[in-house]
């Protein structure tokens, strides 16, 4: 039988094993493996407006005054960020994977 999630220790009334279908593990899938193309920053064009981050369905873009970061573990390469960028500061590049 697969491992059952453990009950919160603060609530002793709850048995250690839940009955019925219950999900208790917060976990993301590494959806970056889906990517055919990846967004790459063209630094000199970026004005840090944050529009790309506002529209990323995965919320994996971080835009600050000094930093710009895309979490490629999850980025599916949909291209929305590049499409909404008013300055053309994101270029979709073919994904290069080893093997």
């Amino acid at each position, binding site marked *: 039988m697969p491992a059952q999630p453990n009950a919160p220790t603060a609530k002793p009334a709850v048995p250690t094993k839940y009955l019925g279908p219950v999900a208790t593990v917060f976990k993301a899938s590494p959806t970056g493996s889906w990517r055919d193309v990846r967004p790459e920053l063209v630094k000199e064009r970026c004005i840090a407006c944050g529009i790309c981050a506002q529209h990323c369905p995965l919320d994996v873009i971080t835009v600050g005054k000094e930093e710009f970061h895309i979490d490629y573990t999850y980025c599916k390469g949909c*291209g929305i960020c590049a499409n909404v960028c008013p300055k053309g500061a994101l270029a979709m590049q073919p994904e290069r994977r080893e093997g």
Partner: protein
Amino acid sequence: MLKVESPAKHLMAHGISTCAGCSMELAARYLLKAAGPQSIVVIPPGCAALLSGFGAETVVKVPVFQGNLENTAAYAAGIRAGLEVLGKEGINVVGFAGDGATVDIGLQALSAAFERGDHILYVCYDNEAYMNTGIQGSASTFPDAWTTTTPAGKEGLGKNMLEIAAAHRIPYAATASAGYVNDLARKLTAAVQAAREKGPAYLHISTPCPTGWRFDPALTIAVAKAAVQTRAWNLVEVVDGDWRLTVEVKDPKPIGEYLRLQGRFRALTPEQEAKLQQLVDSEYEKLLAHLK
């Protein structure tokens, strides 16, 4: 308590098995930002059920119940009633359902929750078909659009869900779009507040679907914006019975600029396109009548 095994900036994980370019996912993130951790969410088995999780794993950090397709509003109403009798205050009860689960099979339970005045927020993400089961047409499918059950184009004009919601005289009803995220965020905040303080709140969000509408995922936001810019989708808010446009499109583009972005209208004839232009124009005139 959740065992957190992946990092997340907010209440949703970043790697979810939604399609690339999914605007339902984008809408869900804005919803959870507005509702916050003190929320309980009911999600029927549609695309958004991907947020509920699989087996022991989930991708959201708020309590979620996956209901059935037609009773999201009834489960939410029961949850609210339970919280009420237990004296648990300050918790948002949210239904998050697609157009099929709302405009088709879920309309009866939703109408009843509106009529009773239950303090729930109901958010419909409208991708205009049963996308999770494979792009079957719904009452919300755009006229003449292709789906797997409307292979020759969808017949009928659909339902105006905003009017239906507003006809229940609920305190807050609005449309929004994944292409207008600031407008969306503001309305979500207003809807959360209305559901807490006044009664039922309804938000109907246009969430274009690259998989079902047949367009490049990169264009999701562009398609959502085009719907608004052509007046195929209007951004409206009805607060205590007062209607107002929140994004006024003064100089609309021809409907063709919206239709031609999408493969689902590929077989459209010029005559059909002209008819859809007339439809959009006349629907806008009716909308203006509400604003007076």
